[in-house]
């Protein structure tokens, strides 16, 4: 069993890139990731490409553009977890000793749909009833406000923090700070969630070079060890589900901490799935960053920002950096790589040694979510 490292990483600035194809989005990220690892396209031994809406052979359409071929290329869809699922598959192959250098790509282009909510699979019974992703999160928010000592302002503060972080990230789609009032007064999307509490429609791509112990020695570039890589699917129920206790995320985190040998108290950086404001609060608890029931207080006390217990979403998160769904898991890994190698510029989390990334997604009837991925990282 080899240890697994990230030895190069890059992404494109997220935004509405209507004139770029899937390969047009991903090729600059791939080339810059290769460059940061100090390797050529021909050095790559396998490719895994995560996406949700790229269509057939997305990975091959990308890597052939830089001359990568005659090696295994796999495409993985796991909704929002597609990119992180690509990391997982690359991780497993390197850990098993199958390859020394694997390119993992995450990419998606949401402007192809023209705007509005993410298209879901029409054959699903809840989709037939009109479910959309913001409605799922809105019902979580409603229940959170009902059960907890929390207010709409607490929800809005998640966006305020995300935008404050994103303002210092050149790769973020939104780089302007906002106030609680602006967030609450933006137009309603699904009550109680307003526009600024929802991640934007956008396009993006990210790439990382994952290597074995031998690959790392050969490259000699700054590296981050991937200490755990966990993927779970949702467990169906036709009955009661506690919408504030997403077992898919808490179980994934539990397994990841166990595999890594360190826990939530050891983390300096967390990139978690804040697709909507409520998500961040719920996931503080699911990932064990704070005790159950204490997430609003955790945010209010500044424990999830610079100077606090752990910096959650220094990139600006999905709310500010953007969420081209299949790209996000890899983009999180890129952000973590930059922090753990001291390359994050003015948003650098000082002395960051350990990090977690978390993406969960997919709206399917009977599940909390379809897929969840948790990765843990350690400075190497």
């Amino acid at each position, binding site marked *: 069993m080899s240890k697994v490292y990230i030895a190069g990483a890059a992404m494109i600035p997220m935004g509405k890139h209507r004139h770029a194809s899937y390969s047009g989005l991903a090729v600059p990220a*791939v080339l810059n990731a290769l460059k940061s690892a100090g390797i050529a396209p021909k050095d790559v031994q396998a490719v895994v490409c995560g996406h949700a809406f790229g269509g057939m052979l997305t990975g091959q359409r990308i890597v052939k553009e830089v001359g990568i071929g005659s090696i295994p290329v796999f495409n993985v869809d796991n909704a929002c977890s597609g990119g992180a699922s690509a990391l997982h598959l690359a991780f497993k192959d390197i850990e098993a000793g199958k390859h020394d250098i694997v390119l993992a790509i995450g990419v998606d282009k949401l402007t192809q749909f023209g705007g509005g909510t993410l298209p879901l699979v029409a054959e699903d019974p809840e989709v037939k009833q009109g479910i959309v992703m913001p409605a799922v999160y809105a019902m979580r928010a409603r229940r959170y406000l009902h059960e907890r000592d929390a207010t709409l302002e607490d929800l809005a503060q998640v966006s305020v923090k995300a935008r404050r972080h994103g303002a210092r990230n050149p790769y973020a789609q939104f780089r302007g700070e906002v106030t609680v009032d602006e967030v609450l007064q933006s137009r309603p999307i699904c009550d109680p969630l307003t526009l600024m509490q929802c991640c934007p429609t956008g396009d993006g791509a990210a790439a990382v070079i994952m290597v074995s112990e031998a690959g790392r020695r050969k490259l000699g570039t700054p590296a981050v060890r991937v200490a755990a890589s966990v993927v779970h699917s949702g467990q169906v129920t036709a009955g009661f589900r506690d919408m504030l206790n997403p077992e898919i995320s808490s179980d994934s985190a539990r397994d990841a901490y166990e595999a890594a040998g360190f826990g939530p108290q050891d983390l300096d950086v967390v990139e978690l799935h804040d697709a909507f404001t409520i998500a961040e609060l719920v996931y503080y608890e699911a990932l064990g960053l704070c005790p159950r029931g204490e997430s609003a207080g955790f945010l209010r006390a500044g424990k999830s920002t610079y100077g606090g217990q752990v910096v959650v979403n220094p990139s600006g998160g999905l709310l500010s950096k953007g969420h081209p769904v299949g790209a996000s898991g890899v983009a999180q890994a890129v952000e973590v790589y930059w922090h753990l190698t001291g390359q994050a510029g003015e948003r650098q989390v000082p002395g960051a040694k350990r990090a977690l990334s978390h993406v969960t997604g997919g709206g399917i009837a009977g599940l909390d979510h379809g897929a969840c991925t948790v990765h843990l990282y350690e400075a190497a």
Partner: protein
Amino acid sequence: MQQAAQATGGAAYADDALPIEDLKEEQGLPFEVKDGMVYLRGSRSRSSGSMAFPEREVCLETGARDMEPFLFGPNATLYSFSTVHVSSSRPVPYTLGYVDFPNGVRVLAHVVAEPSQPLRCDQPVQLRAEGDRWFVVPTQS
């Protein structure tokens, strides 16, 4: 662009981090007519010399972003061909063929020929254009 970085990394990015706008409306026609002859606009890598059609930004052999425009044609060889009678992309029938140029570039082209002139593999063809449209015709049988 908001950043004017020297190099792309975690702190900032340079132009090489921006997406390639390959879906932008065509800037011009993919061919040029000179002295009555039709030439295709391709790209050639400054470092590796690799050539490709249509125009592109990245070298297909090395990933280098140093492609320069160049013209090639008008003569080529018909490698293979088919007349399409059922298509989801355009009205039928039409004839497509892969044509090989002496510089090694292969291009998928529309082939226009008289029904009385059956096509054959390895037949010499030449580029032609009508308005915005380019295609090849057999030059001898």
